[in-house]
C-alpha cells in the first residue's frame, strides 16, 4: 500500500511537470497543442535511448530529452505559428502521430511495438523497491518545484507579459513593436521542452516504454489536470495534477464492483468518464480551483484578463 501511494505521488509529480509545460503554451500564450503527448514521447525515447545506448548519466539524458523535445516544438511552431490556430491544431496532432509512427516502425532504434525495457532508474540497483520509490518521489518533487519556480519567474517576466498579451490580443502586441511570431515559437518550444522532461521522468521511473503509451488520451489527461486546477496559473497545474490522479485512481476502485463488465468495457468506461469530465469542465468554463491572478491589482473586474482566458 505504501508503494502504491508513493507511486501515485510520483505520478502526480510527473503530471504536474507536464501540466506546467502545457500551461506556458496554452494557458499563458493561448496556443493550442493537441499533440502534447508526442513531445512527451520524444522526451521519453530520447532519455531512454541516450541512457541505454550512449551510456549517458541519467541527469544528462534528461537534459538531452528536454532540449530535443524543445527543438521539435520549435520546428512545429515555426511552421505554423504565423497561421490561424486551426493549423497549429492540425500540425501538433500530425506531429504527435508522426512520432508514434516512427517509434512503431523504426525497430532498429526504438525496438518497435515491443518497446524499450530496462531503462535505468537513478540508483535503482542499490535501493530496495520501496527506497527507490521514495527516492524517486523526492527527485520528482524537487524537479517539479524547480520547473514551477522557473515557470513562475517566466510568466511574470516581461516575456510572460508579452505572451499573455498575445493570448488576449496579438494585434496590440504587434502594434507595440514586439515580434509575435518569435515569442510564440519561444513559448511553444519551452513548453514542449518541459513536456519532454516529463516524458523522461516517466521513462526512468517505469523503466519501460512502448509507442502505444503515447496516445491522444494522454494529452487529454494533461489538459484536464490544467483545466481542473486553473488554466494560466502554475499553482493550478500542480493542484490539478493531484485532483486528476485522485479521479483516475478512484475510478479504478469503483469499476470492479460493477458486475458483468469485461475488462475491455471497464477500460472503455474509464476513458469515457475522463472525456465526459473534460467536456463538462470545458463547457462550464470555470476558472479552475486556483484562478489566474491579475497583473494589476487595481484593475476593474471587467477588464480582468481572466475573462478572456480561453478566448482563442
Amino acid at each position, binding site marked *: 500500500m505504501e508503494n502504491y501511494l508513493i507511486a501515485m505521488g510520483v505520478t502526480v509529480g510527473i503530471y504536474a511537470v507536464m501540466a506546467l509545460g502545457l500551461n506556458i503554451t496554452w494557458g499563458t500564450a493561448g496556443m493550442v497543442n493537441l499533440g502534447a503527448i508526442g513531445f512527451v514521447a520524444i522526451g521519453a525515447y530520447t532519455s531512454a535511448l541516450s541512457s541505454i545506448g550512449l551510456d549517458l548519466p541519467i541527469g544528462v539524458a534528461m537534459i538531452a530529452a528536454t532540449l530535443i523535445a524543445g527543438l521539435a516544438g520549435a520546428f512545429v511552431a515555426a511552421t505554423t505559428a504565423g497561421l490561424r490556430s486551426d493549423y497549429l491544431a*492540425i500540425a501538433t496532432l500530425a506531429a504527435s502521430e508522426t512520432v508514434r*509512427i516512427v517509434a512503431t516502425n523504426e525497430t532498429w532504434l526504438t525496438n518497435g511495438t515491443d518497446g524499450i525495457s530496462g531503462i535505468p532508474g537513478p540508483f535503482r540497483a542499490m535501493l530496495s523497491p520501496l527506497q527507490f520509490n521514495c527516492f524517486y518521489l523526492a527527485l520528482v518533487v524537487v524537479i517539479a518545484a524547480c520547473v514551477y519556480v522557473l515557470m513562475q519567474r517566466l510568466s511574470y517576466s516581461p516575456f510572460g507579459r508579452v505572451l499573455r498579451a498575445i493570448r488576449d490580443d496579438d494585434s496590440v502586441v504587434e502594434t507595440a513593436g514586439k515580434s509575435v511570431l518569435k515569442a510564440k515559437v519561444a513559448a511553444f518550444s519551452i513548453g514542449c521542452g518541459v513536456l519532454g522532461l516529463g516524458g523522461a521522468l516517466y521513462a526512468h521511473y517505469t523503466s519501460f516504454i512502448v509507442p502505444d503509451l503515447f496516445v491522444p488520451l494522454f494529452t487529454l489527461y494533461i489538459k484536464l489536470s490544467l483545466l481542473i486546477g486553473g488554466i494560466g496559473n502554475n499553482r493550478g497545474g500542480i493542484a490539478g495534477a493531484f485532483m486528476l490522479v485522485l479521479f483516475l485512481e478512484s475510478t479504478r476502485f469503483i469499476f470492479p464492483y460493477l458486475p458483468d463488465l469485461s475488462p475491455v468495457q471497464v477500460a472503455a468506461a474509464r476513458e*469515457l468518464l475522463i472525456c*465526459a469530465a473534460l467536456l463538462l469542465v470545458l463547457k462550464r468554463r470555470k476558472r479552475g480551483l486556483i484562478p489566474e491572478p491579475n497583473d494589476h491589482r487595481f484593475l476593474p473586474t471587467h477588464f480582468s484578463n481572466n475573462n478572456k482566458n480561453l478566448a482563442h
Partner: protein
Amino acid sequence: MTTSSIVLPTIGLTLIFAVFRYLNFALMAHATLGAYAGFVANTTLGLPILPSLITAFVVAGIIGYTSDRYILRSLRASGTVTTAIGSIALTIGIENLLRFGFGNTLQGYSLPMRRDWWFEGVRIAPQQVENLIIGLIAVVLLFGFLTYTRAGKAMRAVADNRPLADIKGVNANRVYGWTSFLAMGLGGLGGMLLGMDTAVDPLLGYRTMVSVFAAAVLGGLGSMPGALVGALIIGLCEELSLLVLPPSYRSVIGLLTIFIILIVRPQGLLGRRT
C-alpha cells in the same frame, strides 16, 4: 482506391470548416459510428448493403447534429482552442462508447464473395469499384443539394459571408443544424465504405484521420472542389507510396503533405487565403 474511402469524410470536414470556420476533429469518430450503425443494420437486422449505407448516413448525421448542438456549440463561443480540445475529447468519448458496446474485435459486413477483376494485369476488387461509384453518387447528390435547394443555398451563403447572410434573414442556427447533419452523415457513409473495404473496429476512423485532414489541407480548408482534388491526390499518393515505402509508413504521406502545405502554401491548392 483510398480516394473512394476518404473523399466523403474530407468533404464533410470541408463543409463544416466552410460554414462554421472551425475544424471538427470528431468527424472521424462519426465515421466510425456510421460504420457501426451500418454494421448493426447489415448483420443484426439483416438489411442489404444499400439500406445499411443509408442507415450509416442517417445515424451518423443525427448523432453529429446532436453532438454539435449540445456539446460543441457552447464550446465554439469560447474559441478555436477550446473547440479543438472539445472535439478531440468527443472523438475519444465516441470511440470508447463503441468499444464499450462492441469490444475491440474486428467485425465485417456480410458481403457477397466475389472474384477480383483483372484489367491488363491490374487487379481490381469489385468492392472498391462499387465504393467509388457510391462515393461519386453521394458527391453528385451533395453538389446538387448545395446548388439547387434552398437549404443548400443558405449554407453557401453563410459560408461565403456570414454577416450578409444574417442581414438577408438566413436562419444561421438552422444552417448550422443542416451542416452538421450532412457533414457528419457523409462522414458516417465514408466510414462504412471504409469498413467495407477493410474491417470495422473502434479505431477505424482514427486511423484514417491523418489522410482526411491532409486531403482537406491540401485542397484548401473550406473549398469543396479542393476537397475532391485533395482526396484524389492523397489517395493516389498513398497507393503509389506502397511501391517505395513499407505499408506501415503509408500515413507518412499525409503527415508530410500537411507540413509541406503549411510551410509552402497554407491556403492549399484551391482555397482562399485566411
